[in-house]
């Protein structure tokens, strides 16, 4: 096979065999023409990019350097959007040129495996929205809120720079490599590229990580709904609404997706408004006033039933509702922030940025800020989505950059908006809402006294403000409403009421926000349980073959029960934790998510090395190294730190010692039972951290080994196995980006002139 100095020779070899159909126009813009187009800098183009750079620079300057008394929210929008545009236009093209090297003459799985069902060529603009809806959920709405403890700047920098150099890179690479493999999953790719040990470690890690992620998402919902009759009613109503939609779609009017979504949306709004009325009545307030433990058990039972019910009855209709809300809410949030442009009074770096004992989440800025904000900057969970449905729908290889890289930039923008919404509220209010009840004492008086005693600059909160805010949003209390969702809801209500409706509408907006976050999370919980159950069934199936039959009821129910109990146990642990569940568990969520990112990037590194892109391997290696350093450091601190607030085992030892000394209360645990709970929880959390980090290190090491082997093989000119599907010539054409270039337009015109019988069926074009 000869030398492969930069890998191009090898790729070209397999792709030279692509014989285009002579009756068809070219299926790709000529490389030389595209290069010339990209290299040509017209005065307009220069002016546009100069303006974008200038605006971005000024915005960053306003955020990072000037930092006056207040800073306007609009600078967050400009700084992020300009940076995304530059990252997309310049950096993602570097990745495309040197790592992915797409070839539009090759057919995508949607073309060569087309079946009209799973493999369907989808218009790039539609697929962009579809992929975005699949990756964005409650994560980017929650992490940045919790991270705001450190001030706005660290989170903002990490969200924007992190996505450009790490998060979007991961999404794009996984999407592309999966597309070249007919849409294979991350687990299958890990097995192929890293061998049995690396593949198995990746599989177990993925399964455990899913359990943790589902549990902590569920914890966010429980915290938002605890002692909130209005929230419990309106979120509870989503279940009958979804069931109705499911029956409607199955039996009454099959396929009328938009129609039923609209009906569902109207019912949802009615449920929110009705929730206020119900919570206002005495029986309503009594009946729907549930404590967190009850809600957690309800969610566990619900999770099991939802995961064994057929998809059409609950999951599919709620998925439609969730997607419908997602797009609407995000557009609304963006509009409101741009129109209202709230002034932000939070400092760039708060007092907690340089300390380890923040009340919202413990630990130093490095590494804990980087794990607290996972979704929006770098989210390993996306690798599971990018290697699932989306690669089976892409029309042309060059579109992967728009869908994968661009889609993740959009999610990052959502995270920025969530951050803005959360920091637009009073800082004292922020700490009163996000600190565990063990610290605030749970009442408006104790909370106000405690927050004022923190000695934060410019913070002087009155019990009246806490009581009044609770009244405005229609809640009994907002003290210690941890988990991020209620804070975001207050922030959103605060912004939206200036836009539509005034104070009278605040309660509606608050519950609207709680509703959509709960909707996203419940969908993720359902889908996550199902995916985990299949993974478990397949794993057990290696030993007991009967389990591989997915339709075998006892096996399916047993595995579902195991997964639900696993996340349910973690959820209950978080709900009953005397230290405040979010406070101790959220770091585990971030660590789990980013260890998954490290695993995904490891697989990408090995694949990129196999494709012999050594000179530019740093594009993958840099985010991998960063994710690995952050998560391994965070794990080590969680395992070995002698500070009880940070280290699980240190905390365990402190409470065990207190129990041994015969103390009946210790720290924030006021009873012996609570102290025993802390001992138990910290032990479980500590060992989970150990297992995660060990599995991830195994995966990273096997990826390194695969990379070095690829390097040696290339040096010696040895051919190595390639796991891509064989190249098939494409018979269709579509432009790569949102806006076609002149050359692309010319080619599209040529294809449009083609007689209908020669054309492949057209995907929906608009």
């Amino acid at each position, binding site marked *: 096979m000869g030398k492969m100095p930069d890998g191009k020779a090898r790729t070209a070899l397999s792709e030279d065999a692509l014989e285009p159909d002579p009756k068809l126009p070219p299926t790709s813009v000529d490389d030389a023409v595209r290069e010339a187009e990209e290299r040509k800098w017209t005065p307009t183009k220069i002016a546009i990019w100069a303006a974008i750079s200038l605006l971005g620079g000024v915005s960053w300057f306003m955020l990072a350097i000037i930092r006056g008394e207040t800073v306007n929210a609009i600078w967050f929008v400009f700084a992020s959007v300009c940076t995304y545009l530059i990252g997309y236009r310049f950096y993602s093209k570097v990745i495309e040129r040197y790592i992915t090297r797409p070839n539009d003459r090759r057919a995508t799985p949607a073309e060569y495996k087309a079946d*009209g069902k799973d493999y369907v060529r989808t218009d790039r603009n539609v697929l962009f*929205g579809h992929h975005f809806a699949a990756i964005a959920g409650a994560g980017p709405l929650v992490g940045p809120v919790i991270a705001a403890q450190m001030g706005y700047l660290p989170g903002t920098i990490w969200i924007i720079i992190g996505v450009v150099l790490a998060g979007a890179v991961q999404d794009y690479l996984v999407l592309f490599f999966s597309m070249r493999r007919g849409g294979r999953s991350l687990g299958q790719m890990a097995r192929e590229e890293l061998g049995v040990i690396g593949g198995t470690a990746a599989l177990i890690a993925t399964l455990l990580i899913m359990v943790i992620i589902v549990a902590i998402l569920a914890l966010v919902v429980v915290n938002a709904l605890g002692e909130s009759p209005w929230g419990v009613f309106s979120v509870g109503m989503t279940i009958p609404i979804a069931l109705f939609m499911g029956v409607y779609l199955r039996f009454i009017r099959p396929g009328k*997706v938009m129609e039923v979504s609209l009906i569902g949306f109207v019912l949802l709004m009615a449920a929110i408004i009705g929730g206020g009325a119900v919570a206002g009545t005495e029986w309503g307030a009594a009946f729907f006033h549930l404590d967190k433990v009850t809600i957690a058990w309800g969610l566990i039972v619900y999770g099991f039933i939802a995961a064994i019910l057929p*998809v059409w009855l609950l999951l599919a209709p709620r998925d439609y509702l969730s997607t419908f809300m997602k797009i609407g809410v995000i557009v609304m949030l963006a509009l409101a922030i741009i129109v209202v442009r709230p002034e932000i009074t939070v400092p760039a770096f708060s007092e907690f940025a340089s300390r380890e004992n923040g009340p919202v989440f413990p630990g130093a800025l490095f590494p804990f800020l980087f794990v607290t904000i996972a979704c929006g900057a770098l989210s390993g*969970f996306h690798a599971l989505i990018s290697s699932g449905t989306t690669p089976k729908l892409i029309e042309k290889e060059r579109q992967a950059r728009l869908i994968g890289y661009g889609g993740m930039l959009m999610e990052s923008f959502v995270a920025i908006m969530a951050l803005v919404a959360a920091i637009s509220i009073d800082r004292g209010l922020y700490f009163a809402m996000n600190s565990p009840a063990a610290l605030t004492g749970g009442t408006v008086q104790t909370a106000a006294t405690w927050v004022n005693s923190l000695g934060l600059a410019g913070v002087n909160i009155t019990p009246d403000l806490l009581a009044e805010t609770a009244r405005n949003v229609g809640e009994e209390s907002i003290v210690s409403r941890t988990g991020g969702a209620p804070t975001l809801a207050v922030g959103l209500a605060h912004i939206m009421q200036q836009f539509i409706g005034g104070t009278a509408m605040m309660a509606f907006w608050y519950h609207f926000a709680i509703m959509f976050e709960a909707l996203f999370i419940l969908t*993720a919980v359902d889908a996550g349980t199902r995916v985990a159950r299949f993974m478990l069934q397949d794993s057990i199936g290696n030993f007991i073959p009967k389990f591989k039959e997915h339709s075998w009821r006892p096996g399916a129910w047993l595995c579902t029960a195991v997964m639900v109990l696993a996340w349910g146990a973690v959820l209950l642990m978080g709900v009953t934790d005397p230290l405040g569940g979010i406070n101790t568990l959220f770091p585990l969520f971030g660590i789990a998510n980013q260890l998954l990112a490290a695993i995904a990037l490891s697989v990408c590194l090995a694949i990129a090395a196999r494709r012999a892109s050594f000179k530019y391997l740093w594009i993958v290696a840099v985010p991998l190294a960063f994710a690995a350093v952050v998560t391994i450091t965070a794990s080590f601190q969680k395992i070995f730190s002698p500070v009880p607030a940070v280290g699980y085992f240190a905390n365990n030892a402190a409470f065990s010692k207190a129990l041994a000394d015969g103390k009946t209360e210790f720290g924030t645990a006021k009873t012996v039972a609570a102290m025993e709970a802390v001992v138990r929880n910290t032990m479980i959390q500590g060992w989970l951290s150990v297992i995660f980090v060990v599995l991830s290190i195994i995966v990273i090491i096997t990826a390194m080994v695969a990379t070095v082997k690829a390097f040696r093989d290339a040096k010696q000119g040895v051919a190595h196995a390639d796991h891509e599907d064989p190249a098939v010539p494409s018979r269709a054409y579509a432009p790569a980006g949102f806006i076609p270039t002149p050359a692309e337009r010319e080619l599209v015109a040529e294809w449009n002139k083609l007689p209908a019988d020669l054309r492949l069926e057209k995907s929906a074009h*608009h």
Partner: protein
Amino acid sequence: MNAILEGFRGFARYFGGVMGADAYAKYLEHHEASGHAEAPMTEREFWRDHTDRQDNNPQGRCC
């Protein structure tokens, strides 16, 4: 007025695409183009098959 209506229709079509409302139309297109001899599934059959296949191929939703 027509332009506004057209714009709204375009948006509705796009939104429908994102939601996956046009899956049946696409299936019919594919069926016709690939020249299958047997008749395509009816709309009702298609959507049943659509969700029933999801029962066996669950897709994650992100956090």
